[in-house]
């Protein structure tokens, strides 16, 4: 064998052995020894890499939410009422509440239509119009009857935004005509007079 061919075969053998070793390496940059969110873990007994909040500890940032807790029998509303809050509430209501309570809050959501217990209407009978804000907050947080609590899905500030929107929904069916802006009132007068509003 000439020295050139010896070098050639030697190189080939070296490359092959590196390639073969590469196949056996189980860790590479695409599979790093780290836990991605919600990945299973063999380290903890329950098989989860996500750890629950320990007893008697407070999650960072969550202490501010204490200001949003209102007693069940109180009608206080802990956030400033703004159009943005109502808009946020409308969006969150559509995500989390409409499946059962329906877009109009009458308890005819799609899931209720499919066999879930129909929730009471927000409008009639007037019970839910008369309950204090704190009661609504308690129900969204801890649930009531067939409804489980939504504290895990909706952060406290969004729960209040939803309550503000529910109040707006209720008002939409019980506002006195004198509260309407003049343009809308004209429209209503025309409707009542038998014409068609444009």
């Amino acid at each position, binding site marked *: 064998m000439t020295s050139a061919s010896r070098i050639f075969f030697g190189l080939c053998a070296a490359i092959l052995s590196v390639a073969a070793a590469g196949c056996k390496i189980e860790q590479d940059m695409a599979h790093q020894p780290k836990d991605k969110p919600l990945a299973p873990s063999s380290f903890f007994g329950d098989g989860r890499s996500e750890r629950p909040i320990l007893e008697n500890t407070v999650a960072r940032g969550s202490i501010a939410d204490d200001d949003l807790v209102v007693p069940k029998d109180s009608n206080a509303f802990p956030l400033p009422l703004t159009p943005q809050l109502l808009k946020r509430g409308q969006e969150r209501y559509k995500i*989390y509440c409409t499946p059962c309570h329906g877009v109009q809050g009458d308890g005819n959501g799609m899931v209720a239509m499919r066999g879930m217990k129909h929730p009471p209407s927000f409008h009639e009978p007037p019970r839910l119009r008369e309950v204090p804000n704190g009661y609504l907050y308690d129900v969204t947080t801890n649930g009531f009857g*067939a*409804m*489980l609590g939504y504290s895990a*899905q909706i952060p406290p500030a969004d729960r209040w935004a939803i309550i503000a929107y529910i109040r707006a929904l209720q008002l939409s069916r019980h506002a006195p005509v004198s509260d309407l802006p003049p343009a809308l009132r004209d429209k209503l007068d025309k409707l009542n007079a038998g014409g068609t509003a444009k």
Partner: protein
Amino acid sequence: MAQIFHRSTNFISRFSLFSAVFVAGLALTAILGLARSPYSTNQNISRAQPVQFSHKHHVGDDGIDCRYCHTGVETSAVAGIPPTKTCMNCHSVLYADAPYLEPIRDSYRTDKSIEWVKVHRLPDFVYFNHSIHVNKGVGCSTCHGSINQMPLVFQASPLLMEWCLDCHRNPEKALRPLEPVNEVFNMDWKAPDNQAEIGKQFAAERHIRSTAELTSCSTCHR
């Protein structure tokens, strides 16, 4: 001296030279094509799950918003797999005795996680963040496809880096209206004819970064 090879072998030698180049080219095309094919990217494979959960039913038929279950999608890197409790919001009443929901009830009783099968897996050196995409107006279906028509979810996009870059180079084509109606979570959204125009406008309004920044390595890799 007599010639060893007949004159006709000239053709054979030229033919083999050309075919060597041709075969090499074909092999290269095949390798590159294979790496991009669903065979390598795991596209279009419906994954069996521990529970026969149908997105088609829950999203398509019932109209439940993505965020009802995937609560983290607007605020964190991962959209999140819902806890069993979210299933029980409805299924403590609906189909409460159905045998195929037994794994859900069992998980709720025993506090043991349901091991859902991951459908979209990115390499560990990619740091994808759902919230930035969703908040800037990239819709769910742009990457995940028509989830509302998938009984079992499959990976609709190749998830190759060139696929990511395709959008990072031209983000305006994927930007949806956020006002007055947020179309990000609308599964049936179609780009209007003037998308190129309004997309540019959205990109400016929402301060979408320049192509140079969006295609910089450290945007996605750490």
